[in-house]
């Protein structure tokens, strides 16, 4: 799949933003006043910034509001509905925390639930696609949810939970890569089933339909950079999980140093998740590539 920067930025930033909103909604930390304002500003900048970035890949962004209408069948529509609902509910909760010095617990929990649901619906947009076996796995929602919660805990400064959630997210990432590498083979789809000619012998793409490129090849058959996949996986794993874990577990004295290390952990995690998300797209093989003798 073509790794569109808009979609990588969207899933990375909004995943982190909604992860932070989950923790803020649960009252971890139960901040008020100016501190709360800063926390919510960061969460909203990430979540809303990500959502806006996602509209850049639309052919007709001015009609984006229509995407809220088909929640009965479409995961993309459900994501839009959940995101809007989460942002409205958490805005009310944030108003109470910032200006009225009060935590409306029920509203906070609802907002946290909706924020987590937003991340889940995002993951289901990819998981539902049978045409992309590497995404059509139970581990795909696990990747999105565990990354979001680990990043949220890191940003929220949840010292007790963050190391565990980072470790879980790292483990899910490794499992996703291991299983994903076999997904196309185990899906049973190949050029033989794609053409229906597999029973007659070995099928080979002899001549493509055109001499140039087309939308399908540009969008679905992205092979550039796959040769660096193993190196990028190491970079993603180290930056995303190992280094942040090391940084927050390092025993240090002093408020400033501790916050500096925490900030570095967040930035490292963000960079790691972005690399992992790039691989998520670049390594995903769409079965339409088979028709072109590619994968």
């Amino acid at each position: 799949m073509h790794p569109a920067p808009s979609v990588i930025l969207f899933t990375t930033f909004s995943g982190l933003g909604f992860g932070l909103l989950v923790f803020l909604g649960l009252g971890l930390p139960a901040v008020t006043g100016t501190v709360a304002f800063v926390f919510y500003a960061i969460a909203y900048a990430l979540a809303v910034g990500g959502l806006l970035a996602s509209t850049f890949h639309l052919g007709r962004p001015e009609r984006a509001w229509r995407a809220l209408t088909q929640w009965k069948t479409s995961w993309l529509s459900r994501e839009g509905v959940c995101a809007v609902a989460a942002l409205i509910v958490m805005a009310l909760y944030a108003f109470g925390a910032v200006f009225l010095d009060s935590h409306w617990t029920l509203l906070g929990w609802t907002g946290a639930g909706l924020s987590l649901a937003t991340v889940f619906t995002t993951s289901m947009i990819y998981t539902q696609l049978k045409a992309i076996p590497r995404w059509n796995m139970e581990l795909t929602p696990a990747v999105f949810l565990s990354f979001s919660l680990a990043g949220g805990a890191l940003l929220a400064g949840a010292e007790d939970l963050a190391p565990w959630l980072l470790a879980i997210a790292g483990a899910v990432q490794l499992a996703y890569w291991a299983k994903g590498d076999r997904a196309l083979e185990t899906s049973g789809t190949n050029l033989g089933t794609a053409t229906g000619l597999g029973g007659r012998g070995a099928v080979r793409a002899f001549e493509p339909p055109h001499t140039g490129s087309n939308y399908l090849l540009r969008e679905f058959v992205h092979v550039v950079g796959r040769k660096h996949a193993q190196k990028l996986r190491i970079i993603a794993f180290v930056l995303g999980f190992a280094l942040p874990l090391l940084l927050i577990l390092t025993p240090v004295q002093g408020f400033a140093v501790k916050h500096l290390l925490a900030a570095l952990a967040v930035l490292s995690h963000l960079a790691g998740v972005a690399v992992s998300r790039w691989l998520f797209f670049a390594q995903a093989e769409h079965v339409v590539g088979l028709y072109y003798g590619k994968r």
Partner: protein
Amino acid sequence: MTELPAKTDRKMGLVIDLDTCVGCHACVISCKGWNTENYGAPLSDQEPYGGDPSGTFLNRVHSYEVQPEHGHAQLIHFPKSCLHCEDAPCVTVCPTGASYKRVEDGIVLVNEDHCIGCGLCAWSCPYGARELDLAEGVMKKCTLCVDRIYNENLPEIDRTPSCVRTCPAGARHFGDLGDPDSDVSKLVAERGGMDLMPEMGTKPVNKYLPPRPKDRIEDQIDILAPLLAPVAEEPQGFLAWLDKALDKLPGQSSGGAN
């Protein structure tokens, strides 16, 4: 709503004969021509006369080589367009309701006024039947020439999809695949029509007729050959004398046992 209809009154679709298709791409061109001028936004080209031309097509013809375990390889031309699936994933993923399957004839269409060009329907299609038009920013796909097949302004013979009307080899057939007594259904039953990627669970309406087995090339391919065999292996008479005389000349003779 982008819910799929539980049942469609008819299942209009194509039957493509892989035995007959000669790979001339006439269907590709006639499709592009008709659909650029009629239903919905035109099918744009990018850099059509430049160094890297590309464009939107609703129908493309691939060519495959099939090598059986024994015997000769076979070249098969393979036209591919929307299969108007019964369980079309492209319809249910649409967030705006722009993508829909018609109850009356099962045709899968895009309401281009509602399409936001997110591309998710193209992602969900295993067959690569949908292409986002770069000029218009909306999704394009085969309409089964919905503006021809019911068009009373056209002579009756033209009320079939443009690709079917054009095919010079008669490799494309159009009809109701939901009616077991229709010509296309009979053709599918007779020739063992098949689905593409049945494991995807899309239940395509369009069917492909497999190529017939090729004639086997025996050791003896021409029954007249024995009658045309040379009657004398060794030259006789004047030719025998000439042969010997030439052999005696200095220099090397090329070829031949003598």
